[in-house]
């Protein structure tokens, strides 16, 4: 078990800068996800931690020890590749025991650890099969087992669920969480799937162009995104964005946008009162818009907007509505199953002012962070 510290890390391939001035701290036993769109450098970072890619500049500490020049064989960490990288010519048992054989463990210890791991990961009766003879979920578990038997200090997982179908993905992710709880290992998990990241990890490092955009607990990432990119990337369906500027009406500060004059909560209203005329990018999550037909919990911070429901998309337990104001501005929001809306219906909706995210359009940063 170990903590991982990365200080001002740089990496380039040819002239392409993959990772630029990256700092990251991962506590002992923590489950951290590196989240980001493809090509943002998160897998490269994982490979650098594993030692498969050399570090151009910067420092990597594990357990307080500088790891930059330690060859991958001697780093006590394990990695599960996206492709699982099972050795196709070896049986499940040989695959799992490969690392232990190389480390020259005694036969009895090898057997003991093997028994332990196949019980842990429900791999009994598969031990003499070849990788091509088992299912995708089983392969994923074998890859995990192969890493776990070596008792690594840090476990690196590179999109281990992306090759599984949706149903399997859920059980596999639950299993991963269970194992993390049981073994308490430091886990660094790479994914581009924000749902996986939100449900599994203790902290998420959101990547963009080789830099960390935000590093926080999932809840914080969702509730107060630090940048426009964070706000856009996290949450589904995507956030609505409106350009506007701060205006004071009837002695109350708000944001004038094409959609409406948006009101904020008291506290933030006070802050923006001092900066009228400032350009603003306002973000509204589809989940924070209410519909009158349902329960009315209007507050003074709610903004009322009249729209025409142009499109209603049924998503099962809820529906996504695309509405258009008289002026032609679009807004997407979620309604529950009980709130039935017909297409082309005029209606009033309310935007929760406490949960409007306010960004600076130039710096792209959240003003209230």
């Amino acid at each position, binding site marked *: 078990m170990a903590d991982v510290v990365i200080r001002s890390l740089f990496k380039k391939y040819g002239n392409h800068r993959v990772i630029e001035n990256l700092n990251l701290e991962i506590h002992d036993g923590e489950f951290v996800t590196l989240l980001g769109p493809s090509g943002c450098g998160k897998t490269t970072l994982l*490979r650098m931690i*594993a*030692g*498969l890619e050399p570090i151009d500049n910067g420092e990597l500490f594990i357990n307080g020890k500088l790891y930059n020049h330690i060859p*991958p*064989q001697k*780093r006590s*960490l*394990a*990695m599960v*590749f*996206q*492709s699982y*990288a099972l*050795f*196709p*010519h070896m049986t499940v048992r040989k695959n799992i025991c*490969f*690392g232990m054989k*190389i*480390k020259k463990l005694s036969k009895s210890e090898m057997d003991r650890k093997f028994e332990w791991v196949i019980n842990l990961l429900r791999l009994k009766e598969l031990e003499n099969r070849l990788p091509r003879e088992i299912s995708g979920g089983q392969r994923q578990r074998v890859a995990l087992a*192969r890493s776990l038997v*070596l008792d690594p200090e840090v476990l690196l997982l590179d999109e281990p669920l992306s090759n599984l179908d949706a149903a399997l993905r859920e059980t596999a992710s639950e299993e991963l969480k269970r194992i993390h709880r049981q073994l308490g290992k430091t886990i660094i998990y790479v994914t581009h799937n924000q749902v996986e990241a939100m449900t599994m990890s203790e902290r998420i490092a959101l990547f963009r162009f080789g830099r960390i955009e935000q590093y926080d607990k999932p809840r914080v990432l969702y509730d107060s995104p630090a940048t426009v990119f964070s706000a856009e990337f996290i949450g589904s369906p995507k956030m609505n964005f409106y350009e506007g500027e701060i205006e004071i009406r009837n002695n109350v500060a708000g944001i004038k946008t094409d959609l409406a004059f948006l009101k904020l909560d008291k506290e933030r209203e006070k802050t923006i009162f001092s900066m009228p005329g400032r350009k603003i990018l306002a973000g509204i999550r589809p989940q924070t818009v209410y519909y009158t037909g349902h329960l009315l919990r209007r507050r003074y911070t709610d903004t009322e907007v009249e729209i025409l429901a142009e499109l209603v998309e049924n998503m099962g337990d809820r529906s996504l509505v695309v509405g258009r104001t008289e002026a032609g501005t679009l807004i997407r929001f979620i309604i529950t199953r009980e709130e039935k809306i017909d297409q082309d219906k005029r209606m009033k909706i309310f935007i929760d002012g406490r949960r409007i995210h306010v960004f600076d359009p130039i710096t792209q940063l959240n003003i209230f962070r």
Partner: protein
Amino acid sequence: MLWFTGIICALVIVIGPVYLLLKYSVSDINSINTGGNPVPMWPYNPTLQAYVYLFSDSHFYQVLLNSVVISLFTIALGMILGIPASYVLGRYKLPGRKVLLLMIISVRLFPDIASVIPVVEFFIKIGMHQTYLGVILAHTLLALPYIIFIGAGAFESIPDDLEGQAIILGANRFQTFFKLLFPLAMPGLAAAAIYTFLLSWDEFIFSYFLMLGKQEIYTLTLYLNGIKYAEPQNLLAAISVCLSIPVIAFSFMVQKYMVAGISAGSVK
């Protein structure tokens, strides 16, 4: 219909000679020396006489043995030199790797018949003319570019993740090679070995220039060439069949690699 006729014609052109070869090898003497009558399309009295004669001749055994020994040693030497080289070219993303591979394979465009004189002169000078070793070295020279080319392809087709995983699991370079890369490249390397065997087995130019005049070390091709004016045609055909059978059998075994190589315009 036109297409069907075309297929039939092509099959006749392709298979016809093979049929005639087999026919000659089982012909009795009356079907060859017909005394002015046309040679029959199927022998009057088919017989395995030619084969029986061939396999009772001790010189033929010697020749067969020579061919086998030379090709086996060529495979051994070619593999010892070729596998490490193809490992480097297949596994490491070195700059200029593609160019180097192309250069290696285009060595084979240089005419054998033009390079044979210098090699023979050199071997005469160092006393390797008319020796097994000289022929083996020459055949290795011919086979090595193919071995490297096929082998590099075999190593390259192994996913990088597997190697990365082995390294993370603690394997050093040699363990990675012997436990992982080598077994996985095995089918391709076997094809390269078979290809080498074929090349050495029916190689003629270098064998001819290097062994001419020394009957004891003749290979099958030289033996066949040496008796072309003298022996009855059924014997010629029988030797040809013996020479061809392993070639045809192995060719179909490595057909996949041969087709791939030729399609890329690289392997002859």
